[in-house]
């Protein structure tokens, strides 16, 4: 590369073109600017005038300089200048770029991709082939060496994975490589035991360079529940100075919107790689959290999904024999409390009280009957997803519940009395449990041999007994039965919850069964045995950047496999859903430790920040373009063409190059400003153009009348589209009714109702006062009923003679438009409106009537064209003009009423005030 003053040139021979510049200078000087043709009547006076200087206008020197500079910039630009040229000896042979592509890479992925891009660019300049490989996504077969440019184009499609590198596969792959190539390894900065063999594999093929980001690797371990608080633990790879990170818990709020629910700082002490935090949250909040993440770190390792392990179920324990004086161990709920206390929040109280708390599970231990009200409430609660867990006992056995007909709160019918086996007074041995069937939720649990049942209640052999049985004794009699009700279920253990009838509550199986029924929640990561026999499917998965994505349809995996799973392509980290439970598989597990890489001294390690080569070609060509644009302006100016409107156009063109700082006014803003700068009357767009024009003309006429006669000075009326426009700007809407106008949408109705409730007024005009009375006899009237059905219209009455509309400006008793019907309806006065002695008017409602309904075609009577002439005849002769005048007066009164409310109503007190003043 030819280098000059710190700038290298990729194509230095092109610089010879600069020699041509002086020739260009001479050529440009010789050519005069093109003439302008101009129409000008004064040419007659110019005839015979000759130019004093016969030589043409020369291009001024500065314009020549401008053009020469532009051409020079083009020549230099195409010569390929490079700032900070990389002077290293160009490598030869193929180059392999290896990226780890793990979750730890995601934190500065764009910078890594940019670094790979730089390397590929360098390779492309040297004409080398290259291959880009991510270790999480190993290529099949030979290394895909291609032209470096081809790889550069595919760079944006590379993504980091949410799992680590499969060490064995990577080592095998590295050892199987063949050929000679140079390697550039972008490591994620975490020490792994497979790194050394893989490095050795690369070194046998050629030189290896390593790039590592200096940014620390941070990871968040799964949240645990410890001592009533959430224990969070963060890891970092390099022990260093004290560092504080923010950890936030996110989840759905009651409205179903995901938001940050908790946030706490987490501090790594100096020299430590682990930081702990105990986060105490209210149970309601805690149960909502779906994931914790380290703020500001974009990596799957910084996110830990939470599952049922963090959720604490609320379990209500209710037993029928609380009042009995007995040993603690004989209490019906003692073993349940022992089993559930570590993993669930227990609620005590009467059934009424606990139902209010809406627990997840209600346990009825030997409770036979409940009141009818309680039964109804319980059924409803089960329907909505509650789990009713019942245990048998002497009371249940003695009662008649679910004897002849199945009780809604029992899964099966029971036979009277129950049975007792293996006791002193009975034949036979105590019965053991049979292995769980594969349809049972307990499938996979091992049955200990020492669990025996002495007594139980017996289920009636009904047709559906078999499918409801989820656990049975060795002789086939049901031990646990279940019935699904709505979204919830009713489960009955046919034995007691204490050790009276069986040894089941004493065994570990009891706890496991409760867990499988989702009564208790598992304390920690489930073991393979806990999950044996279950199938799980991914619900949500994490991508490498720590974003939660929908998993789509993926095959389910065995519970045993899930228990032992580490994040991998087959089991991506995410949330796995089983029958009633969800298990999170996180990138970081409890026993993950992070440590920084150590490379052999012979390997050169660079940080990501290097001095970049900067290609100046684009900048120079832009400069040339800019100079040429300036040249256009200057030439125009010289030729005298840059005047008047053109100057404005050019200034506008220049303004395009200036970054736009201000925010342009949106059409909505313009509309709002137009509608609110003055009082504006508005009409609703009906879709019938002729009708809309009449409405606009009518409001224009009314506006003019108001302007001339009153202090209201409205602007030009505005047409309002109910679907898109904001209504609250308008005090008054005129709505002509036509049979074929479309009904507004639900949202529009919502806005209209708000408008009516907050003081707006709509004047409905059916325009058929000449042929139809009020009440829907005409097509327009029926359409009005349809339109107004969804509106919040108060009770109506014909305008009473003392309504404030009759005297807001003019004294009126008739409200004619083009028709003279008396049917004009307004909001009814309250029934208790009182007439005060000596007052001509009642004290009527305090508000502006939200609607005025009539059919007098007012707009036609008010309408004026653009010249101010009346558009439609009203009546005949003088009487007609009088009617039009009254119509206008009605309009004035109406607008006055809208704008001043019942102000004129208050004037009824004037006589009293005058009287008090002694007048």
């Amino acid at each position, binding site marked *: 590369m030819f280098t000059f003053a710190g700038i290298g040139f990729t194509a230095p021979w092109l610089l010879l073109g600069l020699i041509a510049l002086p020739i260009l200078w001479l050529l440009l000087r010789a050519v005069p600017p*093109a003439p302008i043709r101009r129409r000008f009547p004064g040419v007659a006076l110019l005839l015979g005038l000759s130019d004093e200087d016969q030589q043409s206008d020369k291009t001024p020197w500065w314009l020549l300089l401008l053009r020469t500079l532009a051409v020079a910039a083009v020549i230099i630009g195409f010569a390929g200048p490079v700032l900070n040229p990389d002077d290293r000896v160009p490598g030869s042979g193929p180059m392999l770029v290896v990226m780890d592509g793990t979750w730890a890479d995601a934190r500065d992925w764009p910078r890594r991709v940019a670094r790979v891009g730089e390397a590929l660019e360098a390779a492309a300049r040297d004409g080398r082939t290259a291959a880009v490989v991510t270790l999480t996504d190993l290529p099949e077969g030979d290394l895909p060496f291609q032209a470096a440019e081809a790889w550069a184009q595919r760079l944006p499609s590379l993504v980091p994975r949410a799992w680590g590198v499969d060490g064995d596969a990577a080592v095998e792959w590295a050892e199987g490589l063949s050929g000679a190539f140079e390697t550039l390894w972008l490591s994620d900065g975490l020490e792994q035991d497979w790194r050394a063999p893989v490095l050795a594999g690369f070194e046998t093929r050629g030189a290896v360079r390593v790039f590592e980001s200096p940014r620390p690797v941070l990871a968040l371990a799964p949240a645990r529940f410890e001592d009533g608080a959430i224990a969070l633990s963060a890891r970092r790879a390099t022990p260093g100075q004290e560092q504080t990170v923010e950890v936030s818990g996110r989840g759905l709020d009651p409205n179903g919107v995901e938001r940050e629910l908790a946030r706490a700082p987490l501090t790594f002490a100096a020299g430590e790689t682990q930081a702990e935090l105990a986060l105490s949250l209210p149970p309601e909040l805690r149960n909502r959290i779906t994931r914790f993440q380290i703020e500001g770190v974009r990596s799957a390792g910084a996110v830990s999904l939470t599952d049922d392990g963090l959720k604490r179920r609320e379990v209500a324990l209710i037993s029928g024999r609380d009042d009995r004086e007995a040993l603690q161990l004989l209490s019906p709920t003692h073993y349940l409390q022992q089993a559930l206390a570590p993993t669930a929040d227990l609620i005590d109280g009467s059934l009424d009280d606990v139902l209010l708390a809406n627990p997840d599970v209600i346990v009825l231990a030997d409770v036979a009957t409940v009141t009818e009200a309680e039964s109804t409430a319980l059924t409803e609660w089960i329907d909505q997803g509650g789990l009713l867990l019942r245990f048998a006992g002497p009371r249940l056995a003695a009662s008649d519940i679910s004897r002849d007909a199945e009780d809604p709160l029992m899964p099966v019918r029971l036979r009277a009395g129950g049975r007792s086996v293996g006791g002193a007074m009975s034949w036979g041995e105590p019965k053991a449990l049979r292995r769980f069937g594969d349809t049972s939720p307990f499938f996979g649990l091992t049955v200990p041999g020492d669990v025996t049942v002495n007594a139980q209640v017996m289920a009636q052999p009904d047709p559906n007994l078999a499918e409801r049985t989820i656990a049975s004794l060795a002789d086939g009699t049901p031990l646990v039965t279940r019935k699904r009700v709505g979204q919830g279920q009713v489960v009955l253990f046919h034995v007691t919850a204490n050790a009276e009838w069986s040894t089941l509550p004493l065994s570990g199986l009891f706890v496991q069964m409760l867990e499988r029924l989702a009564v208790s929640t598992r304390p920690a990561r489930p073991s393979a045995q806990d999950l044996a026999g279950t199938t799980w499917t991914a619900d949500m998965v994490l991508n490498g950047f720590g974003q939660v994505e929908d998993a789509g349809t993926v095959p389910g995996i065995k519970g045993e496999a899930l228990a032992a799973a580490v994040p991998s392509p087959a089991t991506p980290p995410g949330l796995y859903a089983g029958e009633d439970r969800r298990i999170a598989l996180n990138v970081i597990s409890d026993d993950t430790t992070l440590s920084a890489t150590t490379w052999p001294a012979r390997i050169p390690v660079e940080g990501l920040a290097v001095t970049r080569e900067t290609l100046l070609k684009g900048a120079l060509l832009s400069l040339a373009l800019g100079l040429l644009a300036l040249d256009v302006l200057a030439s125009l100016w010289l030729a005298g063409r840059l005047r008047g409107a053109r100057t404005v156009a050019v200034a506008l063109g220049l303004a395009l190059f200036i970054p736009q700082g201000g925010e342009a006014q949106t059409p909505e803003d313009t509309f709002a400003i137009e509608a609110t700068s003055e009082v504006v009357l508005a009409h609703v767009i009906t879709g019938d153009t002729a009708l809309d024009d009449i409405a606009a003309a009518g409001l224009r006429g009314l506006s003019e009348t108001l302007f001339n006669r009153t202090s209201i000075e409205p602007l030009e009326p505005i047409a309002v589209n109910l679907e898109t426009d904001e209504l609250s700007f308008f005090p008054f809407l005129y709505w002509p009714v036509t049979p074929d106008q479309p009904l507004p949408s639900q949202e529009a109705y919502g806005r209209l109702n708000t408008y009516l409730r907050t003081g707006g007024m709509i004047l409905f005009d059916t325009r058929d006062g000449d042929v139809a009375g009020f009440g829907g006899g005409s097509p327009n009237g029926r359409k009005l009923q349809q339109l107004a059905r969804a509106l919040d219209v108060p009770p109506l009455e014909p305008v009473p003679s003392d309504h404030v509309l009759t005297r807001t400006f003019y004294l009126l008793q008739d409200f004619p438009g083009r028709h003279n019907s008396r049917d004009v309806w307004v909001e009814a006065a309250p029934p208790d409106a009182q007439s005060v002695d000596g007052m001509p008017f009642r004290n009527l409602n305090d508000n502006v009537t939200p609607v005025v309904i009539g059919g007098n075609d007012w707009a036609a009577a008010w309408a004026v064209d653009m010249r101010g002439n009346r558009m439609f005849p009203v009546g005949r002769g003088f009487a007609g003009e009088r009617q039009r005048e009254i119509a206008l007066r009605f309009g004035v009164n109406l607008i006055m009423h809208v704008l001043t409310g019942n102000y004129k109503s208050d004037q009824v007190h004037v006589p009293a005030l005058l009287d008090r003043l002694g007048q």
Partner: protein
Amino acid sequence: MSHAADLRAHGETLAGPLPALLADAQHLAQSVVLGAHGRRRAGMGDEFWQYRPAMPGDEARMIDWRRSGRSDAHFVQEKEWQAAQSVLLWVDNARSMEFTSDKARPTKAARARLLAMAVSILLVRGGERVGLSGLGLPPRSGPVQLLRLAAAISDTGDAPDFGAPEARGMLPRSRALFVSDFMGDPAPVTAALTKAADRGIKGAILQILDPQEEAFPFDGRTIFESMGGSVRHETLKAGDLRDRYLERLAARKAMLADLARATGWQYHCHHTGQSAASALLWLFGALERDH
């Protein structure tokens, strides 16, 4: 013809604020027609002028008996001699008048027609007879004549690049108004004005110019063309021509003013950038003035 109607409406608007324009009626026997103009002398008319003692030769029916009954002598009532004045307009309709340097500004032709119509309206309102010079539209009075005038001066037809005044058909001792930019050959103007002066016609010349024609704000290599394209002039440095152009324009104006002075006419130069009302005021004064 909506264009004519618009023109008339605008003319009405402009003429509104002024009192009725009464042209100064010269002593002119031939063109006497009874009208609203008192001639300050006894003659035929409607208005009372004076009583004079009856003279021998007065017919008995001419004696004003009411006045005579109050004295011993006989008196005759004389009326004031009233006559209408004819005013002839020439509005240049040449292509050069269609020029305007700015879209927001009216063309010279539009301004000329507007002023002509305004003056016509004032004259008609004052009872005068207005017509076009030439043989197209002889002077008549009355509002219908305004319609005909508006139609006639709005008719551009195919016009030459530069106009020449029409001096035919001018009634002797009437009044005349020439409106043009007077950019073309000055010889026809001189001839027309001389001919008019020979017939005792007095009047006004209104020169209408665009502001650009006064400023000549051009630069660089330019080919100037007349509006019709018949005349063209190329220059390499338009800026250098400015001074000489302005000299020539001033000379043309001076020539027109001299010509007007010599023939007893009035001259005024009006720019389309100015208010039309100022030009109308001047016209009002010029046609009213008594010479």
